[in-house]
């Protein structure tokens, strides 16, 4: 199973293994990873699963969709590597992915 690592705002790391095909948001919420809320349940409708993709991985996680961009416009600290975790599907290609979570979700 692919492994992904979440780095919390305070630097704490948490690695989880999830079945291929799981969204990055579900990977976090199913494993009770702090720092990801996922209020809308993965509809790209709330921006509470905001993550910063490790720059080593941005090439593989792909681009934001237009709808995702609309929602990211609402976040507190938007960066070039900001994504919504519900819009990224974890597969073998993303085995080892590292993402950081912001100070809070809003």
């Amino acid at each position, binding site marked *: 199973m692919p492994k992904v690592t979440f780095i919390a705002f305070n630097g704490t790391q948490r690695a989880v293994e999830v079945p291929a095909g799981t969204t990055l948001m579900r990977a976090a919420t199913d494993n009770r990873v702090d720092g990801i809320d996922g209020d*809308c*349940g993965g*509809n790209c*409708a709330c*921006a509470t699963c905001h993550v910063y993709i490790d720059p080593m991985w941005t090439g593989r996680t792909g681009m934001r969709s237009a709808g995702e961009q*609309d929602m990211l416009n*609402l976040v507190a600290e938007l960066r070039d590597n900001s994504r919504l975790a519900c819009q990224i599907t974890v597969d073998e290609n993303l085995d080892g992915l590292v993402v950081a979570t912001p100070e*809070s979700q*809003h």
Partner: protein
Amino acid sequence: MSAIPLESTDLGAAAARSRIAAMPLEQINPADPQLFVDDTVGFVFERLRREDPVHRSHSPIPGFDDYWSITRYQDIMQVETNHAVFSSENGITLLDFPPGDEQKLPMFIAMDPPKHDEQRKAVNPIVAPANLNNWRDLIRERTAKVLDGLPRNETFDWVDKVSIELTTLMLATLFDFPLEDRRLLTQWSDLATANKLTNPDAPEPEVRMAELHKMLEYFTRLWNERINAAPRTDLISMLAHGPATRNMGPMEYMGNLALLIVGGNDTTRNSMTGGVLALHNNPQEMVKLRANPALVDSMVSEIIRWQTPLAYMRRTALADALLGGKQIRQGDKLAMWYLSGNRDESAIRDADRFIIDRERPRQHLSFGFGIHRCVGNRLAELQLKILWEEILSRFDTIEVVGEPVRVRSAFVHGFSKLPVRVR
């Protein structure tokens, strides 16, 4: 309370349910404010979700006219996330103002991108979670003081003494508004949503506008004070110095103030009251909470879902669209009934039960979704969390000792009175 009033209430509910079940579908008009006063609108939604989830109705209230009711969770989500077709530009309530009517206030909740995004960004930082730490201690201190001042073993109105007082204090804090004048904020909040067409007790439009102009004068004074000082962290200072908001016209300033006042007042106020009623009616949940106070976090989300303090938001179709098998035409108005979506069994398990430790409690529609999602959501949750923590550490019981009085509105889903006794 004795068994007799409870039984008669149940009988009343059963009668209302059968009456609503027997109505011809085309006569069903969920925006009828009487359904909210009687608290029977839930039966209407129950039927619509089952029989006609995207429902066209006509309201006899002038300015409401024909509208669609969207009652299922997933259909609401679809409308929320498609702002290119379902616009907010014509307003967020079903009432249409005649063109040029100055009662219609411009505010960012009733704008589409890009202007919406710009103005929203100007107020976003103050209620962003990172900033909430600035307020945490102050909210707790003020909440504690209000609760300590309550009479014990004596009936009082929770709405006035707690819910209004706390939310008004919070607003005064956010605006850095003179505390001694804080009840003006409550008055203005009520006035901003007052509507003579749906509520005969509401003030005449001229009176309403005159009062709102007083509000504008007051806030203009504060604006001038803040713009001539260095930027501070209060909302008015932020608006006065923010590049997207500092050139707002007076009506737009007033509109956005009204939005922030109503957004921060009528909503959390009613969740503060609704939570007390929900726990009174579900004593087993109170037992759970006492046994495990850490449940406060999930309970707060559950209270917000259960109460759904704004029953709907309106959108206007900019193009023809199919929704739940119905043909929506360009120009049609739609009410996304959050109050109904939050009781939709196909999206939320045991949706009709108040469960403080439910799975995924934050998956509810009360804050809306999409680009207009409530900007103050985390602040609202924080206020409620602190309130309940402070209640738990002080009172053994909060007993509802009389019938709640509900607000005559299909939009603000709330209470004007809740008689309680604390021990």
